[in-house]
């Protein structure tokens, strides 16, 4: 799967870098000074790199934990995100990473211990107050777990800090390490879901919906808290039928009363990202469809978006109690 590993000089002697390299004995290894020599340089094509991305092992310095963007919360007041990895093994056509980065290589920051220190520092700013940390913003939290062992590594930290909530956001079925561990009270494993036909059309390399549902069932049975993220909602001509069917399928297999949270969010992208993505994939029907620029963002037309949102809210409320339901505010987008 990984054919080339770029290794930062600063990261080369980190035990985690050595451990990861040993998993790929046949991969080409290229030593670099800083990951910025490779990643996100001008004159690269995300589309071409996505065909055969390399892994970059780097060390992060500073800005480990950042305030979460508006609308990212799931009930907490203090929300932060962190990115131990940039880019994702999947290739979802609506994903903002395609517009944000010029490179599709995966950057893995191997110094997880420094992320932990930064999280601890945030907790010390407000002792005793619940703080949420989102890990799946610039990557899928679990998809590369067999390689990164990220969740396995941070598990003891969050086990020791009950006020620190962590959301692992994923579309993957890589839940083995979670199933083998005792569930953490302060961890939410949040799955992003779209209807199966939409997933098949847009979420390239993502495991089939049925497999993801099976992974979710297993996690719930093991006692892990699950989150459902119907985000982004994608418009199709049979939107109502598709989403109704998705909700029915999900709640047939999962116990709604044991869910941590459910959220719904519209398809929205910063305009500059949308333009970059359209240039990358001009033949993509999603980008050719009925979207409009609203301020700095691109999304479906407001009326359509409101209609989609109210439909989903209406359809979800019979399954989900309002206390754990977080539909995005449409007016909050600009």
């Amino acid at each position, binding site marked *: 799967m990984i054919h080339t590993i*770029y290794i930062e000089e600063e990261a080369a002697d980190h035990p985690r870098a050595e451990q990861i390299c040993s998993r790929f004995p046949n991969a080409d290894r*290229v030593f670099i000074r800083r990951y910025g020599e490779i990643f996100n340089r001008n004159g*690269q094509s995300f589309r071409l790199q996505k065909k055969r991305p390399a892994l970059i092992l780097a060390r992060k310095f500073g800005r480990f934990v950042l305030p979460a963007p508006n609308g990212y919360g799931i009930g907490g007041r203090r929300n932060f995100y962190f990115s131990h990895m940039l880019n994702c093994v999947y290739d979802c056509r609506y994903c903002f990473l395609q517009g944000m980065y010029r490179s599709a290589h995966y950057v893995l920051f191997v110094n997880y211990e420094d992320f932990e220190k930064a999280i601890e520092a945030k907790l010390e700013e407000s002792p005793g107050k619940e703080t949420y940390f989102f890990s799946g913003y610039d990557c899928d939290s679990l998809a590369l777990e067999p390689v990164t062992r990220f969740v396995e590594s941070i598990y003891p930290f969050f086990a020791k800090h009950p006020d620190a909530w962590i959301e692992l956001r994923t579309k993957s079925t890589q839940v083995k390490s979670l199933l083998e561990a005792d569930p953490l009270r302060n961890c939410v494993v949040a799955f992003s879901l779209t209807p199966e036909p939409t997933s098949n059309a847009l979420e390239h390399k993502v495991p089939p919906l049925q497999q993801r549902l099976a992974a979710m069932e297993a996690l719930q049975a093991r006692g892990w808290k699950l989150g459902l993220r119907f985000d982004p909602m994608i418009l199709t001509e049979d939107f109502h039928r598709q989403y109704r069917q998705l909700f029915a399928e999900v709640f047939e297999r999962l116990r709604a009363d044991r869910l941590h949270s459910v959220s719904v969010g519209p398809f929205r992208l910063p305009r500059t990202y949308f333009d970059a993505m359209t240039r990358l994939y001009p033949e993509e029907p999603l980008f050719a469809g*009925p979207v409009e620029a609203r301020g700095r963002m691109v999304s479906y037309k407001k009326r359509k978006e409101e209609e989609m949102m109210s439909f989903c809210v209406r359809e979800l409320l019979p399954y989900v109690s309002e206390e754990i339901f977080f539909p995005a505010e449409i007016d909050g987008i600009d």
Partner: protein
Amino acid sequence: MARGEGLVIRLVVALPVEAKPLIAHFQLERAGEARGFEIYEKEGISLVVSGIGKTAAAAATAYLQAWTGNQPNAAWINVGMAGHRDLLLGEGILGDRITDRATGEAWYPPPVIEAPCPRAPLMTVDRVEEAFAEEWVFEMEAAGFYPSACRFASAELVQCYKIISDNASVPPRWLSRRQVDELIEARLPEIDAVVQETARLAGELAASSKEPLEMQTLLNRWHFTSTERHRLHRLLQRWQVLAPDRDLLDSELARRKTGKDVLGLIQARIESLPVRLL
């Protein structure tokens, strides 16, 4: 080597003796009018003979780009001889890092194609290397060629392929013209594979930036401002995606008086189309 498929390939080679087998293989013909550098070409494939050294390679690369009419999305390959302390003569190498020994600058050709040969770091030197003190593939053009070609093409489309012609046991001065010819001849299948794979990627980018079918027809008939042209381009792309089998240029469109009216009608038609993702 498949031809006539719209592939755009640019080859940069230092010496006539290195160019000769490639010219024969790709059946290229000399472009008589070219001045300053010898250029050979045929059906989208062009080759320039740069002369030795990174400065010459950079200049020849830029010259070839200008000569071929500033076409975007070409595959650029630098083919040449190189030395390495231990590697066997005749081994083909695709550069995964290029370092300019004089400046310390480094570049990393993205490993997007499946290499038919091992990858290794290249060190561009200003004088022929005979000491081979380090584990590098020593050569003399890549650090000039690569950054120059990257001005004209996405980095994934720019690659350096080197054949080991000398090592610690066989110094470069022993190399004859005939041996160079034979070394390249023996590696033509690998060179072909690198060229084809890179050109295939280039073709994918070219297809995605292709001008929509009706663009010229509409530009010939109505006046569009620069901003309107951009909008027209994108609207036509969208139309092609959403209604590939429907004719856009009908009598209703023909009755529009201005470019702005045309844009409005196309936009309205697109918005009335059903939203399908496949």
